[in-house]
């Protein structure tokens, strides 16, 4: 248990390091937000300078960073020049939307991958093998193709909305209509992410279960006459869960990166389009805050997987 507490502390330090790294990079950019104003010939030099001073863009790096850290401690994540609003309010909804999408996608992917892995591991020939090979070959299809392909499908068939998280008239819907609308919008981004994750997950699930079924203690249990179903679920699965839980932690980074692209292509209002826009408009505080949000998700996910590992494996608890 102390170990988990230490991990939390470690994550906090890491987060601080990431904030420094991110700030370093964005602050090193030539030009800043005020440069966009220069394109407009009607804006005078003094206005630009005043804008700079107002946002503190003319101060040196250490001062800006120190000020920013101080503000963060008070819950103020800075100001977005492009949106003309405090960053915290922007980040909150966007991060929530990204979290929502990624959690749903993760659940669906694992709910498909694990049974698929169990099924194909316990049978070596026939349909299971074909399906498993088919799924594995999907690994060659990049997310960008999937997203664009699904979008194309959506437009051609009209079965799915072509982007966004909710319809325009969402607020006026009744409860069930709202739910249906949300699911309709969720489907394509989720499918894209799921298909992106599935090959690796299914492969590892199959390997983990196959290895578990082959383990000596399973074989002796089988020799004792324990029925196959009980063998599978009470004995093999908990054993196979270990590498799978670790895999979960490792696959998060790829998932979050994938979701960035998918959100941009499918106009899902998450962190993806936010950070992209911020990079393009040199909205530095938004960039840093988005990076931190994604890092928090990654660290939290890893911490959760550590927790699950702890809960699942009595050997770890004994240490």
């Amino acid at each position, binding site marked *: 248990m102390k170990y988990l507490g230490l991990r939390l502390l470690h994550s906090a330090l890491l987060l601080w390091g990431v904030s420094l790294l991110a700030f370093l990079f*964005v602050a090193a*950019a*030539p030009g800043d937000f005020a440069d966009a104003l220069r394109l407009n010939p009607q804006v005078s030099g003094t206005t630009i300078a005043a804008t700079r001073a107002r946002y503190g863009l003319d101060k040196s790096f250490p001062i800006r960073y120190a000020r920013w850290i101080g503000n963060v401690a008070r819950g103020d994540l800075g100001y977005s020049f492009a949106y003309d609003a405090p960053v915290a309010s922007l980040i909150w909804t966007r991060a929530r939307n990204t979290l929502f999408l990624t959690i749903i996608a993760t659940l669906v992917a694992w709910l498909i991958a694990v049974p698929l892995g169990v099924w194909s591991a316990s049978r070596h020939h026939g349909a299971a093998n074909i399906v498993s090979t088919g799924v594995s070959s999907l690994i060659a299809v*990049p997310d960008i193709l999937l997203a*664009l*392909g699904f979008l194309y499908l959506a437009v051609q068939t009209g079965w799915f909305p*072509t982007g966004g998280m909710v319809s325009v008239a969402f607020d006026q819907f009744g409860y069930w209509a709202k739910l249906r609308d949300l699911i309709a919008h969720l489907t394509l981004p989720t499918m894209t992410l799921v298909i992106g994750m599935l090959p690796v997950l299914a492969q590892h699930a199959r390997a983990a279960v196959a290895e578990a079924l082959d383990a000596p203690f399973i074989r002796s249990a089988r020799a004792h006459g324990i029925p196959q179903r009980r063998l599978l679920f009470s004995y093999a699965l908990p054993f196979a869960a270990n590498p799978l839980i670790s895999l979960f932690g490792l696959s998060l980074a790829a998932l979050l990166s994938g979701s*960035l692209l998918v959100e*941009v292509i499918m106009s899902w209002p998450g962190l993806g389009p936010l950070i992209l826009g911020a990079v393009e408009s040199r909205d530095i505080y938004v960039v840093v805050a988005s990076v931190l949000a*994604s890092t928090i998700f990654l660290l939290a996910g890893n911490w959760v997987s550590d927790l699950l590992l702890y809960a699942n494996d009595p050997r770890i608890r004994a240490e």
Partner: protein
Amino acid sequence: MKRNLKFWAASALLAGIHLLLIFPGFFAPYDYSAQNREFSYAPPSRLHFVDRAGKTHFRPFTYALVRDDQNSGGYVEASNKPIPIRFFVRGSSYSILGIFRSSLHSFGADTSAKFWLMGTDQFGRDEFSRVLYGGRISILAGLIATLLSLILGTILGALAGFYSGWSDVLLMRGVELFLALPWLYLLLTVRASLPLHISTIDTFLLLAAVLGLVGWARPARLVRGMVLSVKERNYVQSARGFGASDVYLLRRHILPQLSSVLLTQAALLVPQFVLAEVTLSFLGLGVSEPVPSWGNLLACLQQYYVLTSYWWMLFPALVLVPFFAGYQMLAAELARRNSAATF
């Protein structure tokens, strides 16, 4: 035997793809920047063997396209004159590897009529040619980035693993830091530190450098682990016992042990870096016009009307599939061979 087949199949596939992309000038019928404004977003040309009169030709041919004003901006084949497709035709001149010049193309239409295997883009540029030229850029960026990240990772990892102590601690903290972010977020952050629009000559080199900088962490960690274990082996200790210098030990004993692992890493990293370039260029932050890359070729698809009406613009994305498949097969085979080897 069957395993060997996979390896050679993957290698052959990759060799074929790379060959196409090293010599785009020859394999592509047209130059990537040659515009035909009257034929904006023309669909892929159709190949025929039987003409309107019912006569079968030995040589495949196509028809010239004209604007179809009745269908509001589409194109229709002008069925008067069949235009044969020939192999090894003379066309626009190009340079091979920057040294030689030639005007021989692998295939093309007779006369100055156009044959667009993958249709055209907004400016009437041949998409097939642009895919070939674009592929060259994307893959080159991927290869350079892989090389950079492996070199950087190996140097840092080897030093940290060999000398241990504070250099090791420093490295591992650094690795942790770089891996604490999802890679695309890290990439965007690093990209944010550069000017938004970079002169196109340097763009893809700069891009490759950025990718390499972002991707050093995993190779470094891998190399560090391996060096740590190899360093303790008895034959290294023996060599030290003869008075071998650190450089000698690294060069003759330790680093050669890493060669097969590094090769496998390379096979895994190249497609990842190519995908990163494609993603960045697609988002407008990578290679930009007029230099083609698979990424910026796909950028127009962000507009719905392009996506729905001009499906052939998806070809650059489709081409990624055999490319990835080849590398993944290769990497799997190499990894399998590594684990099978006893040392």
